[in-house]
């Protein structure tokens, strides 16, 4: 068991699970004594993280997905000059 920079105790099970899932415990809100991260807290956090967090680079198999199933960049309404600049000159239809 260890402490988080003098913070409340990290129980063995929490430490083990955090290592397994590669989770930075400072990101996990603790509801235990003095803000300690309990096992319940960690499980709830993992459950919430089950959905891929945004910004994770596209998984390889997504490459074959048709454009209308590929996730968008998530960047909404970029400045027009950036969008237009990105647009190649109108080529002949494919």
């Amino acid at each position: 068991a260890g402490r988080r920079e003098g913070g409340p105790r990290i129980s063995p099970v929490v430490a083990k699970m955090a290592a397994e899932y590669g989770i930075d415990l400072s990101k996990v809100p603790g509801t235990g004594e003095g803000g300690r991260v309990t096992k319940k807290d960690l499980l709830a956090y993992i459950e919430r993280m089950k959905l891929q967090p945004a910004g994770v680079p596209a998984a390889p198999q997504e490459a074959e997905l048709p454009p209308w199933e590929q996730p968008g960049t998530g960047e909404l309404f970029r400045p027009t000059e950036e969008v237009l600049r990105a647009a190649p000159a109108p080529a002949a239809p494919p």
Partner: protein
Amino acid sequence: MAVEVKEFLPITQRHEDLGLSDETVLRMYYHLLLSRRLDERCWVLQRQGRVPFHISGIAHEGIGVGAAYALRKGFDIVHPYYRDLALSIALGMKPVEFMLALYGKKGDPHSAARQMPSHFSLRHLNIIAGSSPVATQLPQAAGIALAEVLKQKLRPQLEAAGFRVSREMRVVLTSTGEGSTSEGDFHEALNWAGIYKLPLIVLVHNNQYAISVPVWKQMAVKRVADRAAAYGIHGAVCDGGNVLEVYQVVKEAVDRARAGEGTTLIEAVTYRWTPHSSDDDDRTYRTREEVEQGKLRDPLPRLRDYLYRRSLLTQRLEDELEERVRAEVDEAQRQAEEAPYPAPEEALAPVFATEDRSGWWGE
């Protein structure tokens, strides 16, 4: 998991039992296919960076085509929302009319390149200019329907003043997403509809999400259609991926409305397997498995399977249709790309109308 569907759902209805000819049901397929291929091309153009934005009607075509065929084209009035590409195509919108808006080019018949794309507005097809603030079209559609009631009630005075009133009421169909039924506009529209027995159909496309928000976070009831009872109007649920079932339910509602028996709230269930729009990163709110499940509701293969089973479609005819549709989409893209942009100063007008051209009179 938002979708209960486990496997591919065959269409069980028979088109002839619904009064649809072979020719009509094939035309339905053509319109569904055209809408799908046009939609797919727009995604490609957006991913290539040729157009800034696209919001898609994929997964909603069964609802749009089924509803359009139940209406009396050129007579009934439609106040759509941005998923109604297939409804507009089935009512007569040409692919180039959609592409001109997508590119923001001069000649866009919907908004003269002022609105973002997918804001359908075609007066000659009785399609009223859809807005962006969700659900605003619902109480407005109730107002259009109220005017139909007023025409019948005030026929003598109107005709004496030279306004020709059609024998029957025009039916008003307005559509929206299930998320948008949380807006106050939905409540107030249905309340008016119930009190005045308006010739109105409120068609809710329940595609399980409002961008990232699943239905269980949007409302505590299982079915949107359950809310009809709260307003004293009829409610009905149908499988949005079954174009014949949609047609059947909407047709009943159209006849009910035309006969003065009031409004129907229809919930057409589907699943949006595309991202909400070209910008949306849907990995943050759902898993790939769930999306694959949702695609089993796709109206296109389900109608195609039905037509093959009813030997109305052959591989040759299917290929011909695909080729015809591809050519139409290519041509639409070419024209849109060649069309000029509006001149900058066209931004300045028209702000105020100088004459009134509102209304639909006569037959």
